[in-house]
């Protein structure tokens, strides 16, 4: 029980070095500023499963956004489609990347006043209770000269 609670409380920070404790870690996180006031934005990252079992991430939550959803962009004969996904399976001892033009986290209704450089966090929770936290500084799409 204690182990289960400890496992559930383990937090993986974006940018942590390999070998950090925790069954699920997050690396290479990029979170972009919303492009319009109260507009949509996106988070990309790599999720690393360090266990011999599959981890299925199915809940996404953030104090900085009213809603976080997992989506996938597909290109079919030049046509871009975006479909919501209910879960993200990460095979044993493997990594899955969320990246532009593929799977990504859609960040909706940000808290007001977010600025480039500000730290935001997103909590990921798997069906077995494993959690990870993404913490990243907001990036502008095109930094000013």
């Amino acid at each position, binding site marked *: 029980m204690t182990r289960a609670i400890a496992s559930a409380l383990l937090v993986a920070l974006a940018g942590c070095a390999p070998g950090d404790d925790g069954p699920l870690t997050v690396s290479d996180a990029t979170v*972009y*500023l919303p*492009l*319009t*006031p109260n*507009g*949509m*934005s*996106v988070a990309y990252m790599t999720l690393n499963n360090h266990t011999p079992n599959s981890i299925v991430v199915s809940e996404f939550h953030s104090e900085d956004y009213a809603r976080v*959803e997992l*989506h996938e*962009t597909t*290109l079919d004969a*030049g*046509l*871009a*489609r*975006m479909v*919501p996904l209910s879960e993200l399976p990460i095979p044993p001892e493997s990594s899955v990347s969320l990246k*532009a*033009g593929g799977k*990504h986290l*859609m*960040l909706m209704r940000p808290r007001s006043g977010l600025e480039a450089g500000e730290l935001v966090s997103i909590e990921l929770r798997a069906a077995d209770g494993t959690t990870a936290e993404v913490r990243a500084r907001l990036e*502008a*799409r*095109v930094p*000013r*000269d």
Partner: protein
Amino acid sequence: MQRTILKLAALSAVLGALLLVMLSQRQAEGPLHATLLPQPRELPAFALVDQNGSPFGREAFAGRVSLVFFGFTHCPDICPATLQQLAFARRELSESLPPAELPAIVFVSVDPERDDVESVAAYVDAFGDGIDGLTGPLEEIDKLTRALGIFHSRAPQPEGGYQVEHSAAVIVIDRQGRYRAVFSAPHETEAFARDTLYMIENT
């Protein structure tokens, strides 16, 4: 003295020949990623507005090469990713081209119901200089999408609201305001920069 002049003349001839060979090879290579139309196509007349609320019609394309992308401001992934690549390509080209020669980047909303002038203005501002954002009545937008082979359609979402499915191509309009070439997705910043430079120098 005469021998020196002869040597210089011979050297100049060799260098000139080399330059001609390099130029002809460069022209022969053509764009590596974009597809050039066999014949440029004239655009139909259309009436949209830019992010300042100023009229924007086909005549606004004249005078410089334009890279045109159709999308919507509620799109978090492929639309901003493509505009970001275009902005980085333009920035790369600014190291070798004078400002007047740089391509214009033009974002055209295919979701005018949600994308008013104000939201389009905020959206394109995030991509730096040299980008225009267009919106207007759907029937005016569709004069352009039909001419350029761009598809778009609403896709209702399970939680309510809708996304817009749309062609992810980037269209190249030449200095004469004609449809000249198309970049098909997936896109690369380097391909945008390299092929746009080719079209600026050769069309």
